């Protein structure tokens, strides 16, 4: 086990923002931390990276607490903070050079490494330009680059793709994947986009309200839903009344209206379809389209917390 948290707790003004969480990361693993805004992901990361002290509990690196001795984790950790942490008045190159120097990367290799990183994040051509002139996506890419200079054994990325263009996003995801697969770098990837976590991570922790509500590989998590079906229906007309009536069907766990139709989660096995048809028709409407969905992590989250990741 590389990193382990033991009943890690952090409170602000008496409120537990991170609440007794236990998790671990093995060397070379790629682990996702999934949860909606405000779940406590960034706070957890700040504690792990020794930027703030926990209120209770412990963080262990190879079995040794880092609370008293933060130097150990700082040496092997690269952190990509949620907020861009760069000198706006300096160029991309100058930023990387400065951070490389203070990470004490040897002068003889620094130059080469900077160019390598600039290639990796696709900014070699624009390295001389000031960061403040960059788009959000480009800043995010430099932000990642600045965490790679000292070749960290573990990289923690805190929502590195928030608010950027799809092209930059793909670039970032590819970079992270490459780091993990080719360099064997351990990854902790935080996001509230479950597609990203699904794509990148072998193992996922789902966090909500400061607690870990579920964990495991993707299949393990999806098994949580093995007793449920997700059904999507389209109606010729909808109303709140219809939704309410559907909710009242005995085997239905959850109903909500999405961009494409009404989503229904129900217990497996019951003959839900006939009940649905009956209910809808009794309200004078008609089902125009019907499909049973393969569940996603999003659905798992919905199941566990009763809300969606983007709430």
């Amino acid at each position: 086990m590389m990193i382990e948290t033991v009943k890690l707790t952090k409170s602000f003004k008496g409120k537990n923002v991170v609440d007794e969480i236990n998790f671990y990361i093995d060397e070379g693993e790629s682990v996702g931390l999934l949860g909606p805004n405000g779940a406590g992901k960034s706070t957890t990361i700040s504690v792990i990276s020794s930027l703030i002290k926990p209120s209770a509990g412990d963080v262990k690196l190879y079995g040794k607490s880092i609370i008293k001795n933060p130097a150990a984790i700082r040496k092997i950790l690269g952190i990509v903070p949620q907020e861009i942490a760069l000198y706006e008045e300096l160029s991309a190159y100058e930023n990387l050079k400065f951070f490389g120097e203070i990470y004490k990367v040897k002068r003889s290799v620094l130059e080469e490494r900077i160019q390598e990183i600039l290639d990796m994040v696709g900014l070699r051509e624009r390295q001389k330009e000031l960061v403040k002139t960059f788009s959000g996506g480009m800043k995010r890419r430099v932000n990642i680059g600045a965490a790679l200079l000292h070749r960290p054994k573990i990289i923690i990325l805190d929502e590195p793709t928030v608010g950027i263009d799809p092209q930059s996003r793909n670039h970032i995801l590819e970079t992270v994947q490459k780091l993990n697969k080719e360099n064997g770098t351990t990854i902790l990837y935080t996001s509230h986009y479950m597609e990203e976590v699904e794509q990148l991570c072998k193992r996922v922790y789902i966090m909500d309200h400061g607690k870990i509500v579920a964990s495991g590989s993707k299949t393990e998590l999806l098994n949580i839903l093995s007793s449920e079906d997700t059904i999507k229906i389209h109606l010729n007309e909808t109303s709140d009344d219809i939704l309410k009536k559907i909710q009242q069907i005995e085997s239905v766990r959850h109903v909500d209206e999405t961009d494409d139709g009404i989503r229904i989660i129900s217990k497996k096995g019951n003959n839900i379809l006939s009940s649905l048809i009956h209910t809808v028709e009794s309200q004078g409407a008609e089902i125009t389209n019907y499909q049973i969905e393969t569940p996603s992590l999003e659905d798992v989250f919905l199941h566990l917390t009763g809300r969606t990741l983007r709430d």
Partner: protein
Amino acid sequence: MFSFLKKDLLVLWRDRKEVLIALFAPILLVVILNFAFSDIGVDDPKNIDLSVAIVMEDDAEASMQQIEATIQSAPLSDNEQQTLLETAHAIVPSDLLFELFLDDSDLSQWISAERLTASAAAEKMENGDLDAIVHIPAGFNYDVLMQLLLGEVTDTRVKLQIEEHSLQTDILYDIMDNYLNGLNLHLALDHLAEGNIEGAMLPTGGRELLNDEVEPYPYTFAQYFTMALSTLFALFIASTIASKTATEKRQRVINRIIITNTRPVSFLFGKVTATFFFTLLQLLFVCVIVHLALGIFAGKSIEFWFITVLIITFFSLTVAGLSAMFTSLMLRMNSINLATGIFTMIIMLLGTLGGSFFPIGEMSPFMQSLVEWTPNGITTSLFIEALQYGTDAPLLAAFSKQFLLFILFLLIGIFLFPERREV
């Protein structure tokens, strides 16, 4: 360490406008002030004339005889008595005062002074023909000489009666104040030069800081405020540099820096060194440009310039220390605005205590002793003393103080530097 300096200088360089403003603001102000004060009369003496009456209530001759008798009866060797007698006749205090008003060519350009009796002066004042009366009290010469030569503490005060307060009468006040201070200083030095008078004979309290704003001789008002103002401006550099830290905080780079295991000194080193060079540059700029443009230091020796560079160097060191303290405070405090506010208050306090706003002579003794520990106060008074005495000014003592302050501020900075971000 040098990575931080490089980065700090680069960031400053990218912000050239602010840097240039910081460099030129004091120059501009000194030049403007210089012209403002020129208007009072140095350029055009006819524009101003302050009529002052000097009322001599002391019988100088009797006072001198009395002091002779006192010296002769003092338990001193003949040699010592002889020196004292000569000194007494060389510096008859009331004569010096008359010289100041009646003969000094600079002053007589804009002050017309005359000797009058008390009643004549009062009448003239009543008619509005006088701006001020200088009363020299009975026993003045005796008292002053007793104090100067024999260390007897007396309570003699020249009275300045002013008809209506104005900038000009304020200047007159300062001249008087300075004259009295100057008497102490000159004499103290004479004694030291002669070498055969014991230290116990120096006037009680010894040297006093000279901080008054007008001194036709040996230093000029312009020379004074050049240093008083530019040291004040220089203090703001510490705050400016610390506010760059606010940007680092806002841009979160400080978090990145903290988790690289960077030692506080390295981070502060950049700030301190940048501040040092910047302050040095600013003050040298001010002195040189002000001199080239206005000839403020005309006729000064190479030696004087050398001392000035030294004084500025040590002062810059102290400001640099201050920037370390401000930087750590900035990192610790949640509100950037509050932090900046506190820095400004500290600087204004130092400015006030250091005599950048009003003469120190009017403060309580306790406050005056604080003055001697403000970076700008030490610098300004040392500079004034250097103007007057060259290498005889107490350079070493002042430099040690500055250096001590630098170390103190730096240590506070290092101590306060957050190892983790406090939340």
